[in-house]
C-alpha cells in the first residue's frame, strides 16, 4: 500500500468517527559499519516505517502510533487514539490547523543522488580504523562508525495537508584510546555531510588523533573562577541542554523560568540568537514543522532581550500570539515545540581580543544529561580542555568540573568572536563566546 493510500485510509477512519486528525509517517533506511582490528566488526542495515496519529474529538486530544501497517493495525491505531482522547480534559487551544499546504523539500539539495559502491564505504571504515591505530601510542579505536542514513517524513491531515521531506546524512566518527604507561585518554572526531564523497578520512584521522594525544598529559588546574571558552562542539551542546528556555510549551506548563521575561534583557546586549530552519548547510534544515506550517527564521534573543518563545499552534493560541512554526512531534510523542537550527550571530571581537590573557578552552564535558537543571539553570559537569594564554595552549587540563548557572552565564559574556563555526553534526552555527568568571574545581 502506498504512503498516500495508508494516510487516506487513516484520515477517512478519523473523519468517519467525527474527529479531526493529523498523521505523521516517518520512514528510514540506514547503513552502519564498524571496524575492529582491521576487520569489519559490524554491518547493519535497516528499513523502518512508523505511523503516529493525533486526533481531536470534542476538544479532546489523543495520540497513538504503530509500526505495523496492515489493515487491522491501521484500524487499531485510530481506535487507540480516539480511546486515549476520551480520557483527557478538553484542550481549548489545540486544534488541527486548517492548512491544506502542499510542501515538498528539494531532493537535489537535501538528498542528492550519489553512486557509491558499498565496497567504498567499507574501505573508508577500515582505512579510518587502520590509520588511527597506526598512530603512535594508539591502543585501539573502540568506537568508530561510518553511516549513510536517509530519512523521510510525511505529514497529512484531515484538512488536506500533504507535506513531505527527504534528507540524507553521511556520518563518520572515530574515538581513539591512547595509552602511555599509566596514562590514558580517549577522544575522537566526527564528520557529517550530505554526500559520502565529502567525507575525508585523512582529516578525520588527524583530528581524532590530535584531540586525543594532546589531552593525554592533562591534569587539573587549581580551583577558582576562570574565563572560559567552549569549543564549537561543547558550546552547541550547552545551548541544546538549556534550549527549554525558549519553549512556549514549557511556559504554558508553568515550568519555563523565561515565561515572564519576554521583552526583558536576559543576556549581554551583544548576544543575538536566531533559529534558522532554512539554512540548508545544516542538518537541522526544516521546510515545515510537525503541523505542516512553513518555517521561517525566528529571532529569539535580540541585543540581549528575549524576543519570543517558540510556539506551535496550541501554545501560540494559549498566549494569544501566532505560531512560530516550531511544532515538534515524533510519531510516538504528543505535540510539543522544538528548535530547528540555532544560530548565534557573529560578534565583533577579533581573535586577538577574544583569546587574550589567560582562559580555559573546554573541549569535552561529561554528564550533560544528568548534571543540568533546565528549570533552575544550575549545572555541574565534568570537563577537560586546555589552559591557554594569548591564544596559545599552555597545557592540557583534565579531571576538573565546571559549574554555574546558565541563565546567569548569559549575562557574563566577555566577548563574542567575529567568525561562526558549525559543530561537526552541523546542528548549530555559532561564533566563539568568552564567558567570564566561571567556577572550576580541580
Amino acid at each position, binding site marked *: 500500500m502506498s504512503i498516500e493510500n495508508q494516510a487516506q485510509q487513516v484520515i477517512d477512519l478519523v473523519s468517519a468517527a467525527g474527529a479531526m486528525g493529523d498523521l505523521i509517517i516517518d520512514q528510514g533506511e540506514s547503513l552502519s559499519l564498524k571496524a575492529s582490528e582491521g576487520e569489519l566488526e*559490524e*554491518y*547493519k*542495515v*535497516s*528499513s*523502518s516505517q*512508523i505511523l503516529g496519529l493525533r486526533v481531536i474529538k470534542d476538544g479532546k*486530544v*489523543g*495520540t*497513538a*502510533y*504503530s*509500526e*505495523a*501497517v496492515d489493515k487491522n*493495525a491501521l484500524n487499531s491505531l485510530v481506535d487507540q487514539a480516539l480511546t*486515549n*482522547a476520551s*480520557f*483527557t*480534559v478538553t484542550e481549548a487551544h489545540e486544534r488541527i490547523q486548517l492548512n491544506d499546504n502542499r510542501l515538498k523539500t528539494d531532493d537535489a539539495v537535501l538528498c542528492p543522488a550519489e553512486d557509491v559502491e*558499498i565496497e567504498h564505504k*567499507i574501505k573508508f571504515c577500515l582505512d579510518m580504523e587502520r590509520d588511527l591505530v597506526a598512530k603512535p601510542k594508539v591502543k*585501539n579505536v*573502540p568506537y568508530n562508525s561510518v553511516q549513510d542514513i536517509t530519512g523521510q517524513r510525511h505529514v497529512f491531515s484531515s484538512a488536506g495537508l500533504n507535506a513531505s521531506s527527504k534528507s540524507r546524512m553521511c556520518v563518520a566518527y572515530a*574515538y581513539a*584510546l591512547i595509552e602511555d604507561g599509566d596514562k*590514558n*585518554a*580517549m577522544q575522537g572526531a566526527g564528520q557529517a555531510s550530505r554526500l559520502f564523497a565529502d567525507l575525508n578520512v585523512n582529516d578525520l584521522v588527524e583530528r581524532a588523533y590530535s584531540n586525543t594525544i594532546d589531552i593525554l598529559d592533562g591534569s*587539573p588546574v587549581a580551583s577558582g573562577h576562570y574565563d572560559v571558552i567552549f569549543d564549537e562542539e561543547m558550546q552547541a551542546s550547552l545551548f541544546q541542554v538549556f534550549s527549554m528556555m525558549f519553549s512556549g510549551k514549557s511556559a504554558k*506548563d*508553568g*515550568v519555563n*523560568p523565561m515565561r515572564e521575561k519576554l521583552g526583558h534583557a536576559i543576556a549581554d546586549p551583544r548576544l543575538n540568537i536566531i533559529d534558522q530552519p532554512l539554512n540548508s548547510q545544516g542538518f537541522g534544515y526544516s521546510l515545515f514543522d510537525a503541523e505542516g506550517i512553513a518555517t521561517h527564521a525566528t529571532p529569539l534573543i535580540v541585543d540581549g532581550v528575549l524576543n519570543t518563545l517558540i510556539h506551535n499552534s496550541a501554545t501560540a493560541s494559549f498566549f494569544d500570539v501566532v505560531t512560530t512554526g516550531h511544532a515538534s512531534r515524533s510519531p*510516538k*510523542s*504528543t505535540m510539543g515545540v522544538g528548535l530547528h537550527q540555532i544560530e548565534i550571530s557573529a560578534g565583533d571581537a577579533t581573535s586577538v581580543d577574544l583569546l587574550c590573557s589567560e582562559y580555559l578552552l573546554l573541549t569535552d564535558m*561529561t*554528564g550533560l*544529561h*544528568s*548534571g543540568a*537543571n533546565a*528549570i*533552575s539553570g*544550575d*549545572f*555541574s559537569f*565534568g570537563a577537560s580542555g586546555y589552559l591557554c594564554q594569548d591564544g596559545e595552549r599552555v597545557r592540557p587540563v583534565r579531571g*576538573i*568540573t565546571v*559549574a*554555574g*548557572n546558565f541563565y546567569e552565564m548569559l549575562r557574563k559574556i566577555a566577548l563574542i568572536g567575529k567568525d561562526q563555526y558549525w559543530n561537526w553534526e552541523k546542528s548549530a552555527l555559532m561564533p566563539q563566546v568568552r564567558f567570564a568568571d566561571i*567556577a572550576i*574545581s*580541580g
Partner: protein
Amino acid sequence: MLNPQSAQSVIDHGISLGADFAELFVEQSQSNIISTLSNQVQSVESGIDFGIGIRLVYGSKVLYGYTNKPEADELKRIMSELAAKDLRAPGISSTSFDYRQIEDLHSAQRTLSIDSEVESKVAFLMAADAAARAEGNMISQTRGTCRQKQQNIELFNSEGLHTADTRNYIRTGLTSIASDGSDQATGSWSDGGLLGWELQDDISAEKTGSEASRQALVNLGARPCPSGRMPVIIGNGFGGVIFHEACGHLLETTSVAKKASVFHDQMGQMIANPRVNAVDDGLLLKQWGSINIDDEGLDTQRTQLIKDGQLTSFLVDRIGAEQTGFSATGSGRRESYKFAPASRMRNTFIEPGDAELDDMIASIDKGIYASHMGGGSVQPGTGEFNFAVTEGYYIEHGKIKYPVKAATLISTGPAVLKEISMVGKDFSLACGMCGSVSGSVPTSVGQATLKVDDILVGGNA
C-alpha cells in the same frame, strides 16, 4: 509471532550464505503512557512496536539488520544483503527447532494486555499531586507519569533454539517544582518493576508526592555547593549509580573484549577496597532490571562481580564469550529489535555492610552527604565517570550544616573503588534506564549508604 516454518527457512538461508550463526529476534510491544500536569490529565499515549532483528555472525563479525515486514522473502532479502560481502561455502542448513518453554519467574497480574487501567492510574497520580501540594504553597507545579509496557519477544537461532518471553514493565512517578518567585527547584520520586499495575498495592501515592516536594523544597533553599576534593557519603538506592558508572560498564565484555576497559586484564586482582562486594543479579523477583531469559535466549543468573575487593566475573554475552573465553552470564540485552544484543547490566549493586550513617557523618571534617543522586556516565576506556547529586548537604566538623545545590562528582573507576571505606546497612534498589551500544534498557542500581574518602566535587560556591 513468526511461524516456525518461515523462521526455519530464513535461518537456513543464513546458514546457506556461510554464516557461523544466524538469529531472528521478533518483537511486538505495546506501551501506554499517562502524563499529568498539576491535577489534570495532560495526555494518554499508546502504541505498538513491531519488528524483526536479523543477526548473522561470521567469526567475530556481526551483521545486523531489521525490518517491520515479517514476510520470509523480505527477511531473506535482508540476510542476503547483509551477507553479500561475506559469502562463504554454505554450512549445513537444516535447522530444526526445539521449542523451549520459559518459566515466568515474574508473572504479572494487571497487565497492559488486559486493560490499560487509565482511570486507576490517573487516580493514583491525582493523589500524588494532592500530597505534593500539601507540602506547602511554594509547590508551583507537578508533573506525573505512569508508563506501562508489555514486550513480547520470540527468538529463533541456528542452534535450534526457539523460545519466547513476555516482559511486563511498569513505572510511575512525580516531579514537583518549588518556586519562591525568583528561583525554581525540582524534586522527584518514582517506583517501578517487572510487574503489572499491581505495583500500586506496594507503593504509596502520598509518599510519591510528598517525597518529590520535600526534595524540591530542600533544593529551593540550598546554597551553592563547595568544590574540590573531599569525602562524600552517598545515599542508598539510586546512589548505587556510582558503582554502575564507576565499575559496572567497565565489566561488560562489550568494552572488555575490545580492551577498551581499564579492567580488561584485571580478572582475579584486587580492584576495590576489601569492604566492597558487588553483584549483578537478573533473578531478583519482579525487580526492574530482572529478566527470565536474556535477549539471546540464555538463562539469566546472579553474577558475583567483586568479592571482598577482588574481581571475580565480567558480564558476558554470546559474542563476548567467544571473544574473551569467559562463560556467558545471560547478560545479552537490547532495547528492541533495532539493536544487536550486547553485554549489559541487570540489577547491579554493592552488597550491604555494617556501618552506621551517624558514624560516617561523624568521621568527616569537611565533606558532602549526597542523599539522592541523579544519572551519570562513564568513558570505559579511561574509567573517567561522573554523576549528579540531586539532594546534598554540606558536612562540617562531623555534623550536617546546610543543603547544597546540584553538584557533579567525578573520578575514575579504579580510583573510587579503592576509596569506598564504609558501607552501611540500609540497602535498597532503585530503577533507572541505562543507555549504551544496544540502546536503552531497564536496569536497577542499588547499595546501602556508603562513604567515599576522596572524590572531586564540582560545586559552584
